[in-house]
């Protein structure tokens, strides 16, 4: 019997396991994850889960019985501790040893650690795992609260927007002068920030957090310079770093802070695949040799391709990268690979309720950012698929039908 071992039960690992069966793999599937919960979707954690509006049957999915039906040996709360590429064995934290034929590394990221005193106090939360998001939910359920959110990235802004929409108040503290500038570019980021503030989120950018205040329980934060900000609960969302230890043990080649893979998600080590956050993969949509993307849709696509490779020897990941961020009533969609220094062209005016911005580099459209403008977004996807890049003037003109331009070639 051949065995596929999947290290990591996040979105990429889960997709790999489920896809293996779907594409006809008849070998054993061992899916190992350090999370004690059944595999779940991560994006809702910072949105509907923290404020308690999520339908949990759509977050924890598939239903637990599917693993048994599909013959997936899911081991929750277990990690791969040692992996050997030449013997093709792995030791697991439950004491067992697995002799694998294919190994999928889906180890994801670990939350970044900040050297701030007081982070260990009760009342300081993270939102990287379901149990953590549910803890926040139970606190918010007791009545209106004031949240201090350390970190003004997508996760922090999503939690803030969801909390404010649910009747709480939130202050976001971000060290960088312009939050979200790296993924969105400064011009678009400024708009998104303004929209959040218009909705009542307080954003303090360019501030350092010196410590979390409080003796037995966190009562607020003290900023560099001495200012105190009181809060009922604190949420730390300051980014994450890829977990590469297992891949490094196996001797996988690294590049751009991740594990180098080909379009079939194969690492430099035979029969070892890397997927999701840790994978540095080739993309025809990027200028770089390899890119690393920490977003759900990409992780799932990686898992599916790795599974196809294991089962059939075929399959390439060449999806147009995309991600979304739900911030209260606003849904941001980004397709393509944007860089912070790209030239921005807005389509028409850049006012809500619906608008789109294009990212241009060397005169070519590289990405698009859209809020509630599905028609334009669909046109953009068609343009990318057709390999057509309109002129900046065409992109800027709302009267120009982008889908028609794509069809015309």
């Amino acid at each position: 019997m051949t065995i596929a071992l999947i290290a990591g039960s996040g979105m990429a690992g889960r997709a790999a396991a489920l896809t293996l069966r779907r594409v006809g793999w008849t070998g054993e599937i061992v899916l190992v994850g350090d999370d004690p919960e059944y595999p779940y979707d991560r994006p809702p954690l910072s949105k509907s889960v923290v404020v308690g509006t999520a339908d949990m049957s759509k977050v924890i999915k598939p239903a637990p019985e599917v693993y048994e039906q599909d013959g997936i040996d899911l081991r929750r709360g277990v990690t791969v501790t040692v992996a050997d590429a030449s013997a093709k064995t792995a030791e697991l934290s439950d004491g067992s040893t697995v002799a694998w034929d294919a190994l999928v590394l889906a180890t994801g990221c670990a939350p970044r650690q900040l050297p701030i005193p007081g982070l260990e106090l009760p009342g300081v939360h993270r939102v990287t795992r379901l149990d953590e998001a549910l803890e926040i939910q139970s606190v918010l359920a007791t009545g209106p609260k004031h949240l201090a959110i350390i970190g003004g990235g997508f996760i922090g802004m999503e939690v803030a927007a969801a909390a404010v929409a649910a009747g709480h108040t939130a202050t976001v503290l971000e060290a960088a002068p312009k939050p979200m500038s790296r993924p969105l570019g400064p011009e678009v980021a400024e708009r998104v920030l303004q929209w959040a503030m218009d909705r009542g989120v307080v954003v303090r950018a360019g501030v350092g957090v010196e410590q979390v205040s409080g003796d037995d329980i966190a009562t607020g934060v003290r900023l560099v310079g001495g200012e105190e900000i009181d809060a009922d609960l604190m949420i730390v969302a300051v980014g994450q770093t890829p977990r590469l230890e297992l891949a490094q043990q196996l001797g996988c080649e690294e590049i751009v802070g991740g594990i180098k893979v080909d379009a079939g998600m194969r690492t430099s080590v035979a029969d070892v695949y890397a997927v999701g956050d840790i994978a540095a993969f080739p993309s025809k949509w990027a200028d770089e040799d390899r890119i690393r993307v920490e977003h759900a849709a990409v992780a799932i696509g990686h898992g599916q391709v790795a599974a196809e490779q294991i089962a059939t020897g075929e399959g390439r990941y060449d999806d147009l990268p995309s991600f979304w961020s739900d911030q209260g009533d606003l849904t941001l969609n980004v397709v393509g690979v944007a860089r912070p220094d790209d030239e921005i062209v807005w389509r028409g005016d850049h006012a809500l309720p619906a608008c789109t911005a294009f990212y241009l580099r060397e005169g070519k459209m590289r990405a698009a950012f859209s809020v509630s403008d599905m028609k334009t977004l669909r046109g953009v996807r068609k343009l990318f698929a057709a390999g057509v890049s309109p002129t900046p003037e065409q992109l800027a003109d709302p009267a120009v039908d982008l889908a028609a331009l794509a069809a015309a070639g």
Partner: protein
Amino acid sequence: MTQVSIGSLSDFPEGTPTRVEADGTALCIVRVGDTVHAICDDCPHAEASLSEGDFLADDMAIECPLHGSAFNLTTGDPDCPPATEAVEVFTVTVDGDSVLVDV
């Protein structure tokens, strides 16, 4: 499996997604000519009501209003990320003027 009446043909304007509840199941109904399609109204990707999305006649699909995956009315399959799972497709019978769905 029960067959449930969800109304008459004239209740469903051509090409306009409409949400109906049939025996506790939320459905997104689209009429195209004399054919009526029914898919699950809940986007499998996130919390969105597909009947609030647009009908894409060229693709015979419903576009999720939040993140843009379009679901084929016959197969239920999404055409692009972020959705990766198909929506459930329900069998519709048009009997004279009345529309019946197997749920």
